């Protein structure tokens, strides 16, 4: 187990380097100038040249290497070793944002990641609860009306785009019923609606996973034995069947949590949530190079680490797995 963890952690930098290289190539080839104002005034040409030179925007190779030098903390270490001129004040410097001039990528991520974690985890909680309940209902009475009902709801959850669900929720709850809020984030009451719209596709998938796993398990010999021993149906489902049916859900939860936490651009936009998801789209449209690479690398790291965590938990929950 320990060796598995160490091995996976050792590959992490290599994976990140590959992801960085691909992201860099794609971001660099985006059309347009990085530092230009899309609307409004343009600074004199000499000034633009100077900014391009300062961030190595005129030299892809230099940019590529300098970013590694700053982002890995090498720059920080070298500065500390040399003493004297200490220009690097954060260890892992992910660079500035061109569109939000007062914010560094580090600050942007530090501000938006906790928001995304809250939203993502809340959504996953809701998804697990909704998905397990719906899946169990379906499994206990396959092909019944209840099963059909949960199937339809799951289909709707997967296929309806979140901007439709989000807008409907906003109009139904805060605007008509006066429950919840629009456009703000921070209070506990602000979390439910966006977390719910974000959770639906995950819930639908979990419901299908649970249903399939459960139907398999309920037909297994040991369940029949348990029932024959006189264990109540309810006990069998909750104690014996659910535990095994949950394993596929658990392995799905790793990537699902990572995706939910890095947010959904659409849910963040409709509910005006200051999370990470918006940066993926905004930064690409604005060719905000450092933001594109910063959020991609952070997302990749989270995804890899969460997968590792899930694998570890998997072995812990079910010791048979090697």
């Amino acid at each position, binding site marked *: 187990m320990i060796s598995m963890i160490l091995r996976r952690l050792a590959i992490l930098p290599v994976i990140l380097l590959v992801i960085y290289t691909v992201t860099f190539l794609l971001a660099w080839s985006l059309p*347009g100038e990085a530092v230009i104002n899309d609307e409004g005034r343009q600074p004199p040409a000499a000034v633009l040249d100077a900014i391009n030179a300062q961030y190595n925007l005129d030299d892809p190779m230099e940019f590529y290497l300098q970013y590694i030098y700053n982002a890995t903390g090498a720059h920080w270490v070298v500065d500390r070793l040399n003493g004297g001129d200490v220009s690097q004040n954060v260890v892992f410097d992910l660079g500035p944002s061109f569109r939000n001039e007062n914010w560094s990528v580090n600050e942007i991520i530090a501000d938006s990641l906790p928001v995304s974690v809250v939203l993502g985890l809340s959504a*996953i909680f809701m998804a697990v609860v909704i998905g397990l309940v719906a899946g169990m209902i379906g499994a206990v009475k396959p092909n019944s009306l209840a099963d059909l009902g949960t199937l339809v709801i799951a289909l709707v959850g997967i296929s309806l785009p979140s901007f439709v669900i989000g807008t409907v929720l906003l109009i139904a709850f805060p605007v008509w019923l006066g429950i919840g809020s629009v456009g703000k984030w921070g209070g506990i009451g602000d979390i439910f609606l966006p977390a719910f719209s974000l959770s639906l596709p995950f819930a639908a998938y979990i419901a299908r996973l649970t249903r399939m796993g459960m139907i398999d398990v309920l037909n297994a010999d040991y369940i029949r034995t348990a029932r024959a021993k006189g264990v109540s149906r309810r006990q069998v489902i909750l104690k014996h069947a659910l535990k095994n049916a949950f394993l596929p859900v658990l392995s799905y939860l790793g990537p699902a949590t990572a995706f939910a936490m890095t947010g959904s651009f659409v849910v963040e936009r409709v509910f005006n949530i200051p999370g990470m998801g918006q940066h993926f789209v905004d930064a690409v449209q604005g060719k905000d190079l450092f933001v594109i690479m910063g959020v991609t690398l952070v997302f990749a790291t989270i995804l890899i680490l969460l997968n590792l965590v899930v694998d570890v938990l998997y072995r812990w929950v079910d010791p048979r797995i090697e």
Partner: protein
Amino acid sequence: MQKILAIFFILFAILAATVMSDRPLPEAELTIINRTEFNTVDPQQMSYNHDLRLAYSIYEGLVRWDNESEDFDIIPAAARSWTVSDDYLTYTFEIEPTAKWSNGDPVLASDFVYSWRRAILPDTAADYSNLFFSIRNAKAFFEFRADQLDEYADRPQAERTPRAAQQLFDEAIAWFDENVGLRALNDKTLEVTLERPTAFFLDLCAFGTFSPVHPPTLEAHTRLDPNTGSQQINTDWTKPGKIVTNGPYVPTAWRFKREMFLELNPYYWNPGMVRAKTVKIRPINDPNTSVLAYQTGLADWNTDVTVDFVGDMLKEKAEGNFDDIHALSTFGTYFWSFNCTPTLTGGRQNPFYDPRVRRAFSMAVDKTTIVENVKRSGEKVANVFIPPDSIPGFDSPPGLPHDPAAARALLAEAGWVDRDGDGVPENERGEPFPTVTLLYSTGAYHDKIGLAMGGMWKRELGINYKLEGKELKVYKDDLKSRNYMIARGGWFGDYGDPTTFLDLHKTDDGNNDRGYSDPVLDELLAQAEDTAEPEPRMEILEEAERYTVMETAPILPVWHYNYYYLFQPPVDQDGRPNPGGLEGISYHPRLVQYLWKLRVVTEEDLETWEAAR
């Protein structure tokens, strides 16, 4: 099973801890919604409207506008008084003796020298550095420093040291002190000498970019980059707790894309002027969400409504059902640009190089139909570039009329006549008029406007057209490289003078996306620059507007922009105070709002009013 529950318990604990650690800010006396997060709170780097509105609230320039007066008069702000020399070249400002920064430091004349120098320095990369070029030798200083940095960048690595960079910077400052017409005569007296008489110089001084920054704070966050030799600023100084401002408010909290909180600057010299003592600003990107947020009472004022159904809201207002939507004229014009260069990409002849063709296309467009039936949100039709009645003393020409017959005649005069009866005009060599491409950026209403105009050209002139929507960045690239025939555009003026619009037509101006170059216009603008007397100067500029709008038509103005606000009116039809309404909004087309002038009407106002009756 216990293990699974344990996993969820841990996750739940993380979630709860994160939620609990997020302390919401208190409510403010005034809450407003902006369309986007601030680009920057650094006044020298601002150029966006919502950034400048913040500048007017947290900084205080030498003077400000009286935004309720008809002529947008200049009134004292950080300068108590000023004198202008008889040759209109020297301005001497007396700084308000009690003016203080938000840390208690007095506001000094030298703070303005520092801040304006900063705006001119190429190191700062200010979008608006050229606004400062009316100051004597400011442009020369910009070029001096730019050359210096160029030369430094070419030095071998070993000669680019912190010391060398410092030496270079000291040289630049010495040059500045000796040559640039900007001097602090003493702590409270600022003397500005201009390159040539500039009628609108005081108006510039009221503009956000001319606001002062606190030099010690900036200095503590600035260092010279030994690699490029240029000054680099650590943007940390803009964050609450570090930022020091001299205006009515100081930011005390700022959470990215979430909210900014302003509080009364404890050292502001004239606190009586400030009506709401605390202000909260929330950015909401999504237009629909921002309207819904306003409707659920999240804010007192939505500063920029861009939803498609603005027209429907205005209609409801006209029917007396919805008072909250307000359409305000602005200092800006929506237009389409003609590519005015001789050839198109690929070396093809450009028919729009001929001003007669441009005029014909302009006159074939029925703007009233476009504004009323396509845009449908109550804008004023534009036949000129500079919004009429926005600049005192400037009279607008009538502009080109909508006259399809005259348009056809003009096109024929330019040699484009339908010679083979297929409905499309041909030139003398029998080549048909090329299919006109209309370039626009996707994501707004431009496609609808382009479609409407193209249809009119097809109908009236027999021209074939094609729409070409591109992502903003690509559109911008095409515009700059003149890779288009006709493209959507827009412009907002910055200061109260016609040149804020007309300079766009100058040969080689950085914002001249049309490649328009006309010696007659360049000469008129040069003449205006050399004319000190305001009245004859205005006449020259009126001629310049007439010449470009009516004779050479590099642009096709369509409407003058409106801004749409959502706020409850401060009083109802009977003049009764309306609790929750917003007081202090300016309706002047220059459209500058001062946050400190705004106030939400309270129940007490209503009681006082009723008691007085």
